[in-house]
């Protein structure tokens, strides 16, 4: 595992933004968890809570010219990339005005204007699509990067290994950001990943790689920064493995019997990126509790509004069933 060690210290303003993002995600997911339990959420949702530092730290380095390829655990990255909270919520509720007009749903959150690319049904496919975004960026000399978020389980899809190699061969400005949350569905990463170390796959496919603690915003911020800067400056792809706990089940409704008793409580106690960040902001960056509490309150209001609007939104226009199958309809 190559060591990436340029210092990327976040600014005080950057920390405020990061906290706001992470808190927003946490608050959103907790609310969604409650709404789901109350039977008010259609379809299937995968919560991101616990992994917030990953999306927040990565997005802190991304500009408008960059692409972020999402996974099915989509809410957190979509929020971090700045997608409209109301449109996100409406999409999860499969209503009119949703990010994808209610045709995609929770796993497919996508906002083309923000270059936030929604996941496909098959996990891991974003790795190859990101190579394509990177190709387009380079072709247009946009000085951008494409980041592919990947779950640990998804890394066992062949297309991901192929993409690692292709990105190296083509020296693409891509960062493969693996969010290793310890599980793929009900199977532990320690079973499914030979060697239990995804970072090791980087060098095997010609890329620098690093592994960081996803509970530590600062660590993720640095590792993502180094990898993204490397790609942006023509240094080619790299891999960052982010060890981030999953605080809820694989999807809502999952009884999680495959986890040890007390496992989640312990993770919440010891590896909560949000409380850790908050503490460090207070201890090392002179944020006041009041200031942070005010942010929290503001976010609570936004979340309330998003859920209220989503719940009140009408279903999509029935004509959408046959719309947007093709862009060019001549001859059809």
């Amino acid at each position, binding site marked *: 595992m190559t060591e990436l060690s340029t210092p990327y210290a976040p600014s005080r303003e950057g920390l405020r933004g990061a906290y706001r993002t992470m808190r927003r995600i946490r608050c959103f997911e907790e609310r969604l968890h409650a709404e789901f339990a109350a039977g008010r959420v259609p379809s299937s949702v995968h919560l991101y809570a616990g992994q917030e530092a990953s999306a927040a730290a990565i997005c802190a380095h991304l500009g408008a010219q960059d692409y972020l390829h999402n996974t099915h655990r989509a809410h957190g990255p979509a929020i971090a990339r700045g997608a409209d909270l109301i449109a996100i919520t409406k999409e999860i509720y499969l209503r009119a005005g949703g990010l994808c007009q209610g045709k995609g749903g929770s*796993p497919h959150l996508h906002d083309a204007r923000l270059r936030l690319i929604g996941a496909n049904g098959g996990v891991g496919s974003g790795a190859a699509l990101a190579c394509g975004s990177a190709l387009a960026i380079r072709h247009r000399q946009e000085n951008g990067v494409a980041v592919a978020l990947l779950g640990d389980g998804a890394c*066992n899809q062949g297309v991901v290994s192929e993409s690692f190699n292709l990105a190296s061969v083509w020296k693409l400005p891509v960062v493969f950001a693996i969010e290793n949350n310890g599980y793929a569905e009900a199977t532990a990463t320690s079973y499914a990943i030979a060697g239990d170390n995804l970072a090791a796959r980087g060098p095997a496919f010609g890329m620098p790689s690093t592994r960081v603690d996803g509970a530590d915003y600062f660590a993720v911020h640095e590792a993502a920064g180094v990898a993204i800067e490397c790609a942006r400056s023509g240094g080619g792809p790299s891999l960052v493995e982010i060890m981030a706990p999953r605080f809820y089940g694989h999807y809502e409704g999952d009884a999680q019997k495959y986890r040890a008793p007390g496992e989640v409580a312990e993770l919440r106690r010891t590896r909560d990126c949000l409380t850790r960040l908050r503490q460090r902001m207070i201890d090392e960056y002179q944020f006041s509790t009041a200031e942070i509490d005010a942010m929290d309150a503001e976010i609570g209001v936004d979340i309330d509004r998003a859920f209220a609007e989503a719940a009140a939104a009408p279903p999509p226009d029935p004509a959408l069933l046959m719309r947007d199958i093709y862009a060019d309809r001549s001859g059809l």
Partner: protein
Amino acid sequence: MSVKSYRAAIREALEHEMQRDPDVVLIGQDLAGGAGGGGEDDAWGGPMAVTKGLVGKFGRERVLDTPVSEAASIGAAVGAAAAGLRPVAELMFCDFIGVCCDQILNQAAKYRYTFGGQDQVPLTIRTTIGAGQQLGSQHSQALYPLFSYFPGLKVVVPATAYDAKGLLATAIRDNDPVIFCEHRLLYRLREDVPDESYTIPFGEARIVEEGGDVTVVALSRMVHVAAEAVRALREDGIDCDLIDPRTTTPLDTDTIFDSVEATGRLVIVDEAGPRCGTASDIAAIVAEEMFNALRAPIRRVTPPYAPVPAAPELERSYVPDASRIIAAVRSVMER
């Protein structure tokens, strides 16, 4: 005999076949669940809870949880079948066929033929199909027509718990690769199912209703929707034959032909797509072989030529319902 769900009937068939033949092994994601974790074993018993309890009875050597690697896992199942095991591999959603279809369409389907008949490939691939859960374009398809395209595969689309149990036993004992398509909306369907093991031969359609005015062929969950339509039509004096082919390869054309011979009218109801799908397949065969008997256009009731949308209102208008079937039957009765 006891009341069982479609899910339980499938589980029973798996259990019976595993008891019967030690070479039957299960391969798939989270068939037990909990591998490598600190919690319970058999924590999921399959993503759809179909295989629950089997790891406790047969152990992890015969209930093999896999990484999220369908190409390698299904490829391994093909290799194991050719080497003499009788694997039952699970492909969680048929929509994921895209990541492992070389293994299915090229390797499993053509193994015996390409190598001049030296081997057999007694592989069963269980997969799930269907819309109705707001899972969107890539978790809602009914892709069995793709499998029917390829000679060398057999394709099963059970509509009832009884059929699911008997046909799965046949699939596992069959010496060819069989794709067994379970409709997720049927898992909770409950009916009387024998407790003991039994088989149902491939290529024998089930005559669900006898009518005589119109032949209605329906597959998988559409059998139930068509049955609803047929009941409503009967009250209006239109009596339909309702036929469930149960397997699309082999396809029991005899039963369909006999019915069309008598009715002269055919409506095919299918949740697979309208182009190059099973409805087209049956329509083409009948238009070729039974033209002289036909008295009206062959109507196909399928989803539109569109991906599956997630929103429930859109999805409901995507999947064929009884009213569309009734309209199609009425339209062919006008002739």
